[in-house]
């Protein structure tokens, strides 16, 4: 198939199982959120999706892109196909660049692209992530949030078809979170974006398709309602803001968690419906 396919993937760190028979598909243009609590296996799954296969540690199952296992892809092919943005941005800096601009240009330079193309991609990625003012700064002296935007810019400069983001919002202030979410939503529809998150609100703001990873297994898959209001998700991640506010305000007490409104519009509809019914 065209896209990334994970089939019956099982992996353990020593005796500790991390992923247990995970299967999923990511097609071009997908906007997928994979939610899970700490230790649910999100980071390991993100590594497999991006072709970062663990050295010397056996795993069962396969991870393919366009029908070919990642092991058959050259470095250059893989870099153009998928990029991973990790949750600790300082670890995702190349360690080879002395300025923000050099860091963003690092990937395209490695691909030996024409200079005009490298320049265009670098400036475009800097602008997309609002890093123009910081272009000559040392990447290691940026704040955590700025570094996160830099790592995203460095990934975007490679123009990958699949962008995998492992808790990319963790270090960001509210304004920067909004900006990164808006940036992800503005990416061309031919690119697939996979967001691995602990925050149901971030997932809700971005994704169209949702999965819940719990104890290394995919325990729910479907719409926001199917996954975010799933009993297991509510237990481990809590309710998203709107249904939580409804519960705290004592609204819709007769409704089960899975029937609560997920958005303000849904809440308004329900309130209006209840008022009409009383009349």
């Amino acid at each position, binding site marked *: 198939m065209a896209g990334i396919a994970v089939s019956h993937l099982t992996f353990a760190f020593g005796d500790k199982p991390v992923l247990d028979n995970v299967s999923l598909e990511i097609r071009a243009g997908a906007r997928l959120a994979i939610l899970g609590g700490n230790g649910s296996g999100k980071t390991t799954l993100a590594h497999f999706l991006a072709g970062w296969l663990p050295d010397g540690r056996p795993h069962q199952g396969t991870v393919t892109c366009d029908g070919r296992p990642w092991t058959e892809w050259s*470095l250059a092919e893989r870099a153009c196909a998928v990029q991973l943005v990790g949750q600790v941005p300082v*670890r995702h800096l190349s360690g*080879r660049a002395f300025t923000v601009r050099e860091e963003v240009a690092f990937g395209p330079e490695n691909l030996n692209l024409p200079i005009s193309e490298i320049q265009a991609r670098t400036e475009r990625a800097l602008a997309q992530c609002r890093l123009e003012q910081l272009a000559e700064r040392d990447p290691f002296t940026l704040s955590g949030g700025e570094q996160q935007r830099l790592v995203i810019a460095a990934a975007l400069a490679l123009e990958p078809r699949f962008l995998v983001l492992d808790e990319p919002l963790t270090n960001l202030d509210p304004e920067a979170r909004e900006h990164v979410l808006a940036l992800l939503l503005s990416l061309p529809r031919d690119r697939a974006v996979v967001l691995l998150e602990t925050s149901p609100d971030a997932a809700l703001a971005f994704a169209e398709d949702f999965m819940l990873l719990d104890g290394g297994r995919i325990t729910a898959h479907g719409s926001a309602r199917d996954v975010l209001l799933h009993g297991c998700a509510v237990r481990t991640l809590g309710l998203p803001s709107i249904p939580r506010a409804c519960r705290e305000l004592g609204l819709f007490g007769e409704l089960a968690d899975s029937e609560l409104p997920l958005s303000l519009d849904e809440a308004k509809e329900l309130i209006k419906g209840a008022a009409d019914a009383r009349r």
Partner: protein
Amino acid sequence: MRSWSIHRPGTSALHRANPLTKLAALLLLAALLFVLPWPGAWAGSLLLLAAAFGLRIGGVVLRRYLVLATPFLIAVFIFHGLIVDRPDRMPLAAFLSYSQEGLTYAAVLGGRISLMLAGSLLFVATTHPAALLRSLDVAGMPPGLSFLLASPLLLIDEFTKRAGAIRDAQQARGMRVDTLSDRLRALRLLAVPLVTLALADAQERSGVLNGRAFRAFPRRAVLSPPPDTALERRLRHVLVAVSVLLVGCALWLG
């Protein structure tokens, strides 16, 4: 500015020269060590330090020179002049003895080290590391080699910062560092998390480098290569040829 860096921007000819040309000049300096008598090496050191003052970077170069050279030169003179057993030794006290031959050898060795150190510091103070890396990329050096050069320079501050954070966290939770034995114990306790985290970082960074196609090709493009001229390229060839000639002559003449 990074804590270790002594690079000072400037517009002098030395600042503007291509880093590879400066590296070729350093090679010539190293070759000169084979033929220069020891007073010449010391005079060369002084000349280079004076040149640094001429370029208005004398303060930073001299400070770093003294910090690096002083302990080494003192050790060389003590070891070769006063401790090593030589035929012309004249006993002073206990195991110490005075040897003219040993002191001369220390002056030769010290002069060589001093000259290379002064030259290297002048190079580092007038060459931004990024420019050096770009020029190595342009010259077609394997990307892995330039990474080996760059990563310690870039990561040393990060490593120092992390060591400070671990030490502060340990002290905040009651670890004492009052006595020498406390400090030695603290060093051991610091090393374990520091090394563990460094290994985790290295693994992650290796994934990042692969993910961004590092070493996908034997050569990489360079967005903004340092300026280079035909004259400089010819000069580099001459410098390398003279260096080889000097070393050859020195070896041939014994």
